[in-house]
């Protein structure tokens, strides 16, 4: 039994973290900095991470990259293209559709969707800003057309992967929000002391860190299970991870907003960007607590 990351996995994680730290938006204003966005797009394209799955990467590796990019609020497509690639290698310009909307639609011309074991494809309409300010969504520009079949095992594993990778984004966003709040608690003073020195602030931040640790653990197991357990078991593990991470990540982001006080409730504070990313990821391949029964004997 060995749950350690391999050296390659650790360096992939470090590379994704480095890129996100360098080119992710460090302020709400930076979202509209087109020069930065172009550089980020070039860097992600150059990394080849959007086709990680066809390059043989495991669920663990996809989850690591998704987590680090979300931690840095990376606002160019990764989740959509990498899941499309995992469904069927399709080259640049393809994302996935969830319901009747293409997610990560910036630069996408086509969207793939999975219905049972049937693949569907549709052209992508004009992109629009969604709830998640770091992500562009778009309606489908035409009815989905059949685009072939995949095996039941492939379909089930893909669903587990999609659930895991969206959970990984939530964990990353929670970590980003937490780091922001801890930093703020050290510099913001009231009554002559940094607010982080008060237990009323430090205890929720400590709880939030424990939640993040729980997320990391439940997610890593589920991401490993995507490729290593039977498909039904992989889905079970993914669902557990998603339910846990959705609750935990939302709590962590809410704590981050509360720690920021009035500022945390303003548009200019980054905290709501993390929260929005968490909320949207929870709704993308959602899992409800009521569905967890399948995990019980």
């Amino acid at each position, binding site marked *: 039994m060995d*749950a350690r990351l391999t050296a390659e996995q650790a360096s992939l994680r470090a590379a994704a973290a480095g890129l996100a730290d360098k080119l992710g938006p460090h302020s709400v204003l930076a979202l509209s900095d087109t020069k930065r966005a172009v550089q980020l797009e070039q860097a992600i394209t150059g990394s080849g991470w959007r086709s990680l799955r066809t390059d043989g990467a495991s669920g663990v590796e996809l989850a690591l990259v998704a987590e680090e990019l979300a931690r840095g609020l990376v606002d160019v497509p990764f989740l959509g293209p990498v899941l499309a690639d995992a469904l069927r290698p399709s080259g640049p310009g393809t994302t996935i559709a969830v319901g009747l909307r293409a997610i990560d639609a910036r630069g996408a011309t086509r969207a793939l969707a999975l219905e049972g074991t049937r693949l569907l494809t549709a052209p992508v309409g004009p992109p629009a800003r969604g709830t998640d300010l770091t992500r562009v969504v778009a309606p489908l520009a035409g009815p989905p057309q059949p685009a072939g079949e995949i095996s039941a095992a492939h379909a089930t594993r893909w669903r587990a992967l999609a659930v895991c990778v969206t959970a990984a984004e939530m964990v990353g966003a929670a970590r980003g929000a937490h780091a922001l709040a801890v930093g703020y608690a050290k510099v913001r003073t009231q009554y002559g002391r940094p607010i982080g020195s008060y*237990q009323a602030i430090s*205890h929720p931040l400590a709880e939030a*860190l*424990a939640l993040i640790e*729980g997320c990391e*653990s439940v997610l890593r197991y589920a991401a*490993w299970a995507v490729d290593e357990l039977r498909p039904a078991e992989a889905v079970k593990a993914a669902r557990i991870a998603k339910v846990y991470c959705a609750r935990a990540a939302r709590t962590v982001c809410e704590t981050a907003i509360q720690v920021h006080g009035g500022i945390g409730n303003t548009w200019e504070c980054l905290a709501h960007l993390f929260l929005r990313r968490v909320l949207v990821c929870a709704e993308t391949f959602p899992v409800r607590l009521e569905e967890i029964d399948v995990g*019980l*004997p």
Partner: protein
Amino acid sequence: MDYRDSPGEAEFRSRLRDWLARHAREFALSGDEYWSRYGDWHRALYGAGFFGLSWPREYGGQDRPPVYDVILDEELAAAGAPPRPSLGYLVTGLGHHGSKELCRRFLPGMISGTERWCQGFSEPGAGSDLASLATTAVRDDDAYVVRGQKIWTSYSDVADWCLLLARTDPAAPRHQGLSAFVISMHQPGIEQRPLTMISGVSTEFGQVTFDGARVPAGNMVGAPGDGWKLAMTVVSHEREPSTLGFTARYGKTVRTLAARLPGEPGEGRTIPSELAWAHVQTQMLYAHVRRRLAEQMDGQTHGPQGSLDKLLMTWTEQAVGHAALAVAGTGDAAALEAYLYSRAQSVMGGTSQIQKNIIADRILGLGG
């Protein structure tokens, strides 16, 4: 990365499972009967070669990696056997701080269960603020004379020995005036009374009064003034991942509760949200223990991180307690006991508030 057992681990697991199939049901799982037969269980497990797995061979252990302790915990829970005797903190405390001579004298009996132990740390006036403890040990010739009161002392009624923390230098700064001793519980000058918990269990904890009890100076663990260091080793060990032995038991309780629900799994039956959430948390904790073990394999030692683990374990146990109430109700004695017992988890081994202080101060650097 592989969460599955290695061949060696699988072989051990199956050998253990065979033994448990024959012996697990001979011992009670909870309540006073469990606590009163704890010693027999310890010796049976040790005698069969399934206890002290990760401890030094020279003291009766097997020098195995801590993952074997986790396998043991999982199989004990699955078989419906009592939990692994919880002694790791004592073995570690004495092992790290005691002289070779003390270790040779005391560790083998502690590990094999032929000698019973308790820990005399907490006092009525010294709970979270342990360094304020007031029990004194005063040098008298070649011995120390102990006076004071200890509380929350597990197994004080059956213990042969106590790992005691007492103040030997009242003039020193409070963390530096403490020393640790191995003191015999079989002597005049020691009186012990049971504490009855909210669950009704009265054989787990005791209160101990030391009134002129004697301990040979040679039974001091470490040097005079080393008591606080030993106490810190002990309390952080209590939060090590492989000592989170109850993890597997939570999962077992959840499955037992699920089996009582009407309808079949996966057939659209309604399960109480408390139970589903407890299941999610137990699965999280299963994965968490494995990730922590992996970090240990890389040589990371867990100082303050143990406080994160303790919070996760506490939340899980208390969620399982709520699930027990939701499914079985207060009329079910076992469910009520599981629930009431879970309330102690956020207090024992350092309260949740203290864990949060440690996390805030030593991991997040928020100061206090």
